[in-house]
């Protein structure tokens, strides 16, 4: 079968909005960090924290063990802060938000208006690096839930931020995480008080807009004892020729009996057919199941970006805690994905489950890389891992690199992985029943991904399913 899957042709989110941007001077330096901190009116402890990270960063080297190699990034040639100017006088309500922004969101299909209430989604929209509008605050505030931009949280809830920021991804982590700690500009902050079930799905849409802006989001979600939250993150980006770096940090903390569900649909600009342009998505996502019986579940659908390089991980500290990872990664043309998870079992009776589906087409490379580590004290722990890869065409690659360590004899680990192409018999069966090749492939691939898709919340599942199909448009058997 010769298949050419064309994701870009229908990259309907490829546009830029003309909004005057307010930028920090180019380059990475102490001055830039101080500038960001000053612009955001941050307290001194945070500036010190950033500077500490910067100091550490200078001693670190960029990692090079990953499979997708990328051209050297000139960190002195990037803008580290860019805010849409119109937010300098903060809007009090949606009406005051720049109409162009609203339009952008409309094109993206983000319901920033009344529709949203109906669909039950509260959106903390991040346009470039500054939160512009936050909705449904009233309803959430009633329950004591804090859902705001992290800059706002730093001003209004410094104790919470101080306590948890960097507690999962410390300053001393790897290069890109530390870079983020030094220069992060904005992101979301969620705090769910004890025994509160968040009544709606919380959601943030990111857009990378201003050219040459590295995006350094920082998200912090804390689920206090007995609480529950489901968080959605969706990404689209405008067409660009230049590679854009995105090094976000996402930290999750689940205390006793708490549960966090974190879902991502990522559809950033993947570059053109020749592999020119596209986003570098180097994200550090990590969750800590600190409390007993806590649970963190990652679900991701990765279809965009030139290079995706991320490993949403769970540190299972609390006894009986549970970590889950569901992933679909679709790569096409020259896209490269190196993604997977780390499940670090520290507490007793901890459980983890990994389901990863990789689809590779064109000249793309798709790697699952993961770690399951059961420590000596993690008695009766359990892990189940399944990674399946689907190859379309013989110019692409699919790789599986799991690291599995079991240091506890009462614990069990099971791992399986398969790689194959679309079954000819299944295709034939579908063709015979009147489906054309494209519909058949789409049906089979959606079936292949089903275990992951069904983990997504309703609204997202529909979008994700569409994305999977769009990615397959133009593929001929």
């Amino acid at each position, binding site marked *: 079968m010769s298949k050419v899957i064309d994701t870009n042709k229908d990259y309907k989110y490829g546009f830029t909005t003309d909004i005057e941007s307010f930028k920090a001077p180019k380059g990475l330096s102490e001055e830039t960090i101080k500038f960001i901190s000053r612009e955001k009116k941050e307290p001194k402890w945070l500036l010190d924290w950033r500077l500490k990270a910067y100091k550490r960063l200078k001693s670190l080297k960029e990692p090079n063990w990953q499979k997708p190699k990328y051209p050297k990034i000139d960190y002195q040639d990037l803008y580290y802060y860019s805010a849409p100017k119109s937010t300098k006088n903060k809007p009090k309500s949606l009406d005051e938000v720049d109409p162009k922004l609203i339009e952008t969101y409309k094109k993206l299909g983000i319901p920033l208006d009344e529709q949203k209430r109906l669909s039950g989604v509260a959106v903390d929209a991040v346009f470039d690096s500054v939160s512009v509008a936050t909705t449904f605050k009233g309803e959430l505030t009633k329950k004591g839930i804090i859902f705001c931009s992290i800059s706002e949280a730093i001003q209004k809830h410094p104790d919470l931020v101080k306590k948890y920021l960097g507690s999962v991804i410390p300053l001393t982590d790897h290069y890109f995480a530390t870079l983020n700690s030094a220069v992060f500009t904005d992101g979301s902050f969620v705090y769910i008080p004890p025994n509160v079930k968040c009544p709606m799905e919380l959601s943030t849409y990111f857009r990378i807009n201003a050219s040459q802006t590295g995006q350094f989001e920082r998200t912090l979600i804390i689920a206090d004892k007995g609480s529950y939250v489901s968080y959605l993150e969706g990404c689209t980006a405008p067409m660009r020729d230049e590679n854009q770096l995105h090094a976000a940090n996402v930290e999750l903390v689940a205390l006793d009996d708490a549960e966090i569900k974190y879902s991502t649909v990522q559809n950033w600009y993947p570059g053109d057919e020749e592999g020119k342009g596209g986003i570098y998505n180097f994200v550090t996502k990590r969750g800590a199941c600190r409390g007993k019986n806590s649970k963190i579940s990652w679900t991701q659908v990765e279809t965009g970006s030139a290079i995706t390089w991320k490993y949403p991980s769970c540190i299972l500290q609390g006894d009986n805690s549970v970590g889950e990872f569901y992933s679909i990664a679709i790569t096409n043309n020259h896209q490269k994905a190196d993604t997977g998870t780390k499940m670090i079992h520290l507490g007793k009776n901890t459980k983890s489950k990994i389901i990863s589906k990789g689809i590779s087409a064109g000249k793309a490379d798709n790697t699952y890389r993961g770690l399951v580590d059961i420590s000596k004290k993690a008695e009766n722990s359990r892990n189940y891992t399944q990674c399946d890869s689907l190859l379309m065409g013989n110019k692409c690659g699919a*790789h599986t690199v799991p690291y599995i360590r079991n240091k506890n004899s009462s614990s*069990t680990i099971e791992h399986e992985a398969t790689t194959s192409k679309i079954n000819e018999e299944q295709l034939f069966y579908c063709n015979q029943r009147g489906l054309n090749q494209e519909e058949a492939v789409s049906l089979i691939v959606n079936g292949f991904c089903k275990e992951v898709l069904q983990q997504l919340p309703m609204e997202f599942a529909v979008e994700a399913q569409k994305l999977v199909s769009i990615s397959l448009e133009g593929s001929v058997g």
Partner: protein
Amino acid sequence: MELNFKIRDKSDKSLKLREENLSNFKKKGFPNKREEDWKFTDLEKFLKDNFDELNNDKLNDKKPDFHEFSFIHNSVKLINGKFQSFDFKSENLKDKNCFSITNLDFNHHLNFANNLKDNPMQNLNTALHEGGFNLNISSDYKFKHPIVIYNYFTGNLKNKIINYSDSINLSKNSKATIIEYLVDESEGNFFKNSFKYINLDENSHLDYYFINKNESRNFFYEFSKVQLSKNSNFKKYLFSSGIKFGKFESNIKLNGTNSCGEVYSGLFLDNNNHQEVKTTIQHLKPNCQSHQDVKNVITSGSKGVFQGKIFVEEIAQKTNAYQLSKGLLLDKDSEFSTKPELEIYADDVRCSHGSTSGNIDKDALFYLKARGIDSKEAIKMIIKGFLETVLEKIKNKEIMDILLNHFNTHIRYENRSN
């Protein structure tokens, strides 16, 4: 740890090469856990913890009493890696040209060693290389009886490093079964660093067994490079239980269509042993097959490691590759680490791997106990059953007996107090 490595071979041709290799090795040193290939086996640390000194001074070989198997076989004898003698009478050969076996000289070693230049262990092996055997099987000759290689380590080998390499070549349509039987009767700790080069021409067939006889407190590293041509078939069986430290690497290149490479290993790791089985199977031509089955039973502070990689080249369509690794952990201090890796560039393939680790299945234990078998006996039965699945494909009765005997020697669960 002091390294006293001297190049004794001063002949014009080799001295320069040996010196080059030694300096290359010295630049990198023994690999440690920071290197991806040695992530789970920190050789540098193991050697530092166990040796004050390593040297390659001349060995005082003590001729051992060779205890030969009673079944009909051909034999090759090695002492401390060096080729001593052979006896192929049982084949009743009329044509003497069916095979040749000689000492492997340095020039011959270089034919193979050159393409592994960046490997510090290979550098060390080349720099200090001494002997090994060179077996060549002529075309169309099929061995009637197995060849047993009695690989003895004797005499005082304290602080010694032993470097040698062997070469086995099977010409067209030939066939052989080789059993490498390791007997360690030496005194003092030593470290063995050896390389093996195996080539299979079209339609040839080789079954290679590595079986360890007794307990050994020594350190063994072996790298096997296997090259397969069209329609050839290579099976490797690894039974190295009882060795304190072992790392056995196999790099199998399926370089002809319809070739097939298989690796089987069943290990019982006891007494703080550390063993690693590492495989790289490269599917380079269409229609090739590979199969791997590695089982480890781990107890008393031992560590088992498996790193297995299946690589499929773009043109290697219709590949069928399977890999299974299982660890059975019997007590708290044991550890099993695996890295089963797939790197695939062809789409019309079937590649899969599975890896599990855990304790003895409680249901299985209950089943046996309910039938009146006491706990220790039941556990032993489960362990044996677990390991013996890798023997399923062996048809030769004599080899089966040796292996069952090997398992009986090394699986000693009933002696435990707990």
